[in-house]
């Protein structure tokens, strides 16, 4: 039984290349956006959190590009399952970073609020005009917000087609960036009209959204690394594919009973099909044919082993069905 090491079928290759291009565009754009926010940072806590979020936004595209180089490397003696989980590792690192920095800046923002810290924002000289820095913050925020929204929208369908959870998380985070833009802009406008607390409140909202992004991503990637049953890319429900495979194998004439066990390795599925054959005749050839059939069902069925067995062990039901 052989499993090819290239994950994606030819028709998905062009989508992958588009995703790579989009991620490169994202990184280049993020460099300019983070610079724009940095230059107008001033003493605003909301701007500071928006900036931290911009910096954290670098992680998903970079980890996607990293994983995309790594994932197709063939299995070796030291990495016999290949490198598919490069995606999950990158995703894990990103989630931890989001959670850590989110928590730090959340504490910082809340402490500014409870200590009644009034943000001072002065003037800058631009083309010989002395203007209030606050007025420059809002265009900088819009510049980081609007293209993010568009890029996020463009990535979402690609993430679904590629069954790429890190790309999906990236797209969703970018799409949700309007919250940052709106909150931070309101914070700055609040300072302008003399509401000192508006800034810290906006910062608290933004950092809270960073923390919850980090928590949600961490929860999901941990589940994936714990070999949770495969889920759809939005983690909303169990992927119907294992059930379909089980049904297809059961319907084979030589199969008495079958049970499928799949797990996600990055973008693709690995797993076992336990089969209780009704006859031992031509067993090897039957297994080979069944294997080919399974492989042709879906590109994600990357490395599936068919294991003939005398009887199936009882399956233990989950005490609580948490995520399907």
């Amino acid at each position, binding site marked *: 039984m052989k499993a090819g090491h290239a994950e994606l079928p030819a028709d998905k290759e062009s989508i992958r290349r588009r995703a790579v291009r989009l991620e490169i565009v994202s990184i280049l754009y993020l460099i300019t956006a983070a610079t724009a926010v940095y230059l107008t940072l001033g*003493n605003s806590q909301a701007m500071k959190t928006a900036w931290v979020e911009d910096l954290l936004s670098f992680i998903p595209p970079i980890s996607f590009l990293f994983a995309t180089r790594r994932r197709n490397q063939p299995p070796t003696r030291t990495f016999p399952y290949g490198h598919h989980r490069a995606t999950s590792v990158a995703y894990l690192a990103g989630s931890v970073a989001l959670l850590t920095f989110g928590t730090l800046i959340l504490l910082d923002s809340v402490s500014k609020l409870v200590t009644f*810290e*009034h*943000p*001072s*924002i*002065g*003037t*800058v*000289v*631009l*083309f010989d*005009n*002395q*203007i*209030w820095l*606050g*007025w420059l913050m809002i265009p900088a925020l819009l510049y980081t917000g609007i293209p993010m929204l568009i890029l996020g929208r463009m990535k979402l369908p690609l993430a679904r087609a590629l069954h790429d959870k890190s790309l999906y998380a990236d797209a969703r985070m970018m799409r949700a960036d309007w919250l940052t833009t709106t909150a931070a802009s309101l914070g700055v406008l609040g*300072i*302008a*009209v*003399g*509401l*000192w607390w508006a800034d810290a409140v906006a910062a608290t909202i933004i950092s809270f959204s960073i923390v919850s992004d980090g928590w949600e991503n961490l929860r999901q990637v941990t589940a994936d690394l714990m070999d949770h049953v495969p889920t759809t890319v939005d983690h909303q429900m169990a992927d119907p594919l294992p059930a379909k495979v089980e049904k297809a194998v059961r319907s084979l004439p030589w199969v008495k009973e079958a049970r499928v066990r799949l797990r996600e390795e990055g973008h693709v599925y690995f797993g076992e099909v336990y089969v209780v054959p009704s006859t031992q005749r031509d067993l090897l050839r039957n297994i080979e044919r069944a294997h080919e059939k399974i492989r042709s069902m879906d590109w994600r069925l990357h490395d599936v082993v068919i294991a003939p067995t005398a009887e199936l062990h009882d399956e233990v039901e989950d005490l609580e069905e948490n995520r399907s």
Partner: protein
Amino acid sequence: MARHPKTAALAVALSFLSACGLPRDPEGTLQRVRGGTLRVGITEHPPWTIVDGDEPGGVEVTLVEDLAERLDARISWTFGSEAQLFEALERRELDLVIGGFAADDPWAEIVSLTQPYITIRTIVGVSPGTPSPSSADGLRIAAERGTDVPALVEEHDGIPVRVDSLEDASPPVAADEWEVRALGLQPTDVILHESQYAMAIVPGENAWLVYLERYLRSRLSEVPDLLVEQAS
């Protein structure tokens, strides 16, 4: 302006916003000071601030007195150390603290400073008519004892000659640019350090901050003369 029509339009739009009285002070400092009392803390740092008896003097005192006149305000001076004055400023008992604060001072982190309104360079000065050295490297340079200047000379590989007063020191000397001029020496291009000076302001009062920063910028060109005047 004509070369940047968009910038000009932006500037017009932004000055419109300022005309609406934005940004505003959360505690209304600017409004209260206008026609009222400007509460200024002062700590000595010649030539910026000089405390002699009850009458304060110095470059920043001149600037603040003119500011008060503009605002039609009376000044109430409070003399004290940085620690005392910054504490009072933080608690809104003062509106402004002056004392020749540099933007790279340690307390710049904990108090609100205005944008630096002037950059002062510490340079090497020589006797008029003598050629300028290209660097401080290996030169014996007079510097005032008990200041950071001898260390700056050393940093630039010069040999500091510590003196009690620059008045009777033999050139070259290292000092702030205005000091070099006041001593009747010729400034050179050998720059040892740059410091940017600012005033400390009550935090978060952004209308007051913007007003003060605009005022300081409008006086920028006069500061070097004020410094020389103060020294003589």
